[in-house]
């Protein structure tokens, strides 16, 4: 798709204006124009294809690929049916020359464990006062839809992360299995390793429905009978809870673990969202059956999936993202992705104006992949390392009077222990507790300590520090470090620790850990440090860094713009009229009203349901 003259002008304007000051330090209209211009530039320069031998999707075998999403994500793009499917490679937001993975000794400079200990470890919980804990869970819910690197390479020699002096890590040695790279093909000579996404890259609800036909059948199975539900609904237990699988998607035993399309890294808040959207799926099926009483269960399931996935995408675009980017510019741009600058009311009343994305939003505009086939990217995965959002403990309280039922550590609300929580706390009270608690802020020294020593005491007794692994993975997969990363996204590159962050203590700590070399600062660390940089860092009102935001504005649009079901085929003929209206008329607020109606008094006054809810008695 060629750039229009307006695009080119905006791109050049953004680049020129950014030399003077960052977009968020300009007046509103200039800032919005700059954000759009940055996106134009990044669509041209920050989308890199890594495929040389794409996977070959099986023939559709009579499946209506035009009107329904395949389980493995194939046939979304009908010209390149492999695009975005399970097993396709991650793309890149950087030039390939910048993405060769680091290897020892560079991989350990400085030690990821040292970074974890000195810069990431939570000293005291730092909350985000304007968000609730559902916001933290939501992004994990979405990430499970978009991407996973799958299992690590068990055959390879593990990385041996050096331990800093005095570190009392278990057994005195920290080993981490390398990421399993995609086998190299003839066209890969001279190119960096690439990795495959074991989930579909599309925004297709695969965290709920799975990325294979087998998984899809499993979540559609009635736990009471063990048989596929013939009515097109998802399987649920009699009490409305998700079925139990007792093992993870990758096959690891985990007693009482719930079943979902993706059930890794399971914890209570993630379980809540899965349960809500399983119920939402079933509600959509009920609605569609009114208009199509003779339709098969398979047809109802697939259409409801289409609608549910679009609703999740809409919630993310017009509710979650504006909550995280809580400024005029952030709200305008992210809501504009869905509704355009004409806004929701106008679009509801009069429909789209033309086919462009600026006036009436991306849904319904022509599909375009810009400069590379659609894929999730390694850099996107890297900037979505948001573990600091998670608290180390959660207080569960009754929604009737806000009294505490129980306060539990993170490890006690994870994996199969989620069911223990439900045994002690009613579902509505769990949701209320999440809606009235704050997530952690994305700043240095706020990584949950529970995740810094995870004990997976299986037969081999594996322990790991997720903070150190976050650092290691970015280096291993060739995600450029902070300064190199910023250099490639038209963002100011700090030349000193004083420019990176305004906090003198952080400056000193960073200088010590990185031996005074600003260019060595890791991407994750830089994004957390810039939270305290008024000049170049996190924009006012934002829950995450400007660095991450640049990738978001590119990829958030792309997830919609590349997907045929959000562009060319986002229409009633494909979604059904009732399904299309369901997407247009619903939101997370209505989902909560439908499935947790008793909680309405608590979130009714919230401008955004990801903002803290009103506490009982407040």
């Amino acid at each position, binding site marked *: 798709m060629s750039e229009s003259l307006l695009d080119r002008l905006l791109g050049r304007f953004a680049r020129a204006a950014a030399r003077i000051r960052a977009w968020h330090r300009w007046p509103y209209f200039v800032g919005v124009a700059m954000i759009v211009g940055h996106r134009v530039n990044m669509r041209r320069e920050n989308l890199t294809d890594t495929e040389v031998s794409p996977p070959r999707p099986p023939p559709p075998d009579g499946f209506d690929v035009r009107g329904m999403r395949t389980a493995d994500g194939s046939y979304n793009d009908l010209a390149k049916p492999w695009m975005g499917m399970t097993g396709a490679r991650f793309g890149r937001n950087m030039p390939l020359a910048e993405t060769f993975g680091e290897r020892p000794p560079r991989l350990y400079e400085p030690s990821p464990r040292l970074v974890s200990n000195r810069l990431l470890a939570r000293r005291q919980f730092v909350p985000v006062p304007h968000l609730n804990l559902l916001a933290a869970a939501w992004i994990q819910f979405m990430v499970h839809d978009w991407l996973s690197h799958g299992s690590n390479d068990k055959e390879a020699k593990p990385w041996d992360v050096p331990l800093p002096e005095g570190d009392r890590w278990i057994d005195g040695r920290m080993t981490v299995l390398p990421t399993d790279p995609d086998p190299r093909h003839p066209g890969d000579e001279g*190119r960096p390793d690439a990795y495959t996404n074991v989930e579909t890259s599309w925004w297709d609800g695969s965290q709920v429905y799975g990325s294979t036909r087998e998984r899809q059948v499993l979540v559609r199975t009635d736990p009471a009978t063990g048989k596929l539900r013939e009515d097109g609904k998802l399987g649920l237990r009699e009490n409305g809870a998700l079925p139990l699988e007792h093992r993870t998607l990758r096959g690891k035993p985990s007693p009482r673990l719930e079943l979902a399309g993706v059930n890794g890294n399971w914890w209570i808040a993630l379980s809540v969202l899965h349960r809500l959207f399983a119920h939402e799926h079933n509600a959509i099926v009920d609605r569609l059956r009114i208009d199509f009483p003779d339709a098969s269960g398979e047809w109802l399931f697939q259409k409801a999936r289409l609608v549910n996935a679009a609703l999740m995408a809409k919630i993310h675009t017009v509710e979650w993202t504006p909550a995280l980017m809580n400024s005029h510019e952030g709200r305008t741009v992210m809501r504009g992705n869905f509704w355009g600058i004409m806004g929701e009311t106008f679009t509801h009343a009069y429909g789209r104006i033309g086919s462009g994305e600026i006036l009436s939003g991306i849904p319904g505009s022509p599909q375009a992949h810009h400069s590379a086939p659609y894929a999730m990217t390694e850099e996107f995965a890297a900037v979505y390392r948001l573990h600091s959002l998670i608290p180390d403990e959660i207080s569960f309280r009754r929604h009737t009077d806000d009294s505490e039922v129980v306060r539990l550590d993170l490890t006690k609300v994870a994996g199969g222990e989620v069911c223990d929580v439900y045994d002690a706390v009613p579902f509505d009270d769990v949701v209320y507790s999440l809606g009235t608690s704050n997530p952690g802020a994305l700043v240095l020294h706020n990584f949950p300590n529970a995740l810094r020593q995870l004990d997976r005491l299986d037969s081999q007794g594996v322990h790991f520090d997720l903070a150190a692994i976050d650092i290691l993975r970015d280096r291993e997969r060739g995600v450029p470090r902070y300064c190199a990363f910023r250099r490639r996204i038209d963002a100011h590159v700090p030349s000193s620790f004083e420019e990176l962050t305004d906090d003198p203590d952080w400056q000193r700590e960073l200088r010590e850990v990185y031996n005074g070399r600003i260019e060595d600062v890791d991407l994750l660390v830089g994004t957390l440090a810039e939270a305290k940089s008024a000049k170049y860092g996190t924009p006012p009102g934002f829950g995450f860094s400007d660095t991450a935001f640049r990738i978001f504005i590119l990829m958030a649009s792309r997830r919609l713009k590349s997907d045929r079901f959000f562009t060319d085929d986002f229409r009633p003929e494909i979604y059904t009229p009732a399904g299309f209206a369901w997407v247009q008329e619903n939101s997370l607020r209505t989902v909560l009203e439908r499935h947790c109606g008793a909680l309405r008094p608590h979130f009714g006054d919230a401008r955004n349901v990801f903002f803290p809810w009103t506490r009982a008695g407040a």
Partner: protein
Amino acid sequence: MVRTIRVPLLVDLLVAEEPDAIQALAAEARLDRGVPARAPLVNRMIAHRVADVLQVEGRPLPSVAPRDAPGRAAARDALETRLDARRIDQAHLDALAAYVVGRGDRPVGPLVQETIGRLFVAEFRATDETWQAARLLDQAARTLNPIRRLVWAFTGRVNDARRLLARRFAGDPAALHAVAIAVHTLVASFQRMRGLAARSGGVPRHPPAEAASICLAAPPRVLRYATAPGADAHATFRAGTLVLLGLEAARARTLAHDVAFLTATWSRCPAHAWVPALLEAVWQRAAETAQP
């Protein structure tokens, strides 16, 4: 993405910077090198300027010779065979490696020019004069500045520069192209290598093949013009359309050597194997010399 710039009678350009589009256009039978018989004004000016600069004694340099120019393909194949058999002498390898690790005392331009020149003339010595001549010819082939061209035409500097280099290589068009035009992309590659080494404190750490892949520079743009109207999946062109293939931008997107050298096409560079091998050898040597 293929960009088009069309103003009737004045200009008709296609700019391709996507690897797929470049590969398709480079293989397109209706695109060729040379000077179009009929084309918009700016197209003709550009084509004439390039043809005028990149020639020696009326013979086009290989990089601008049309597909069916007599002897072009055979000469290219012969040169390719000769290059593949040649090894860089140790002194030049050491000097280039020293430059990469920041220790060399010789300017990189003449050093690379001499390294290349000796593939053609064993006793060739690059001087500041030969290097400046190469820079001038390269600038003359690229510039759109009419005043500069006028000055050069008036002073005859471009002709002098071409004569100087032609004398050293007995008027061999392939040699002239190598030491006057191609040399600049190789210099850019070594400058990148030096930068890459500097990022890790002057110590080369990447494996040689990886370093060569990262640092290889391709010509920023090569020209073709349409001999007949046509269209493919990427672009539509008319007779006389000037097509600019942005090899460097495309190579950066894929790191594929075959894009940089158009290896799979009729116009492949005869040095497509020699250049990466040289880069790897220099990096390897640099790594050895940087060892404490």
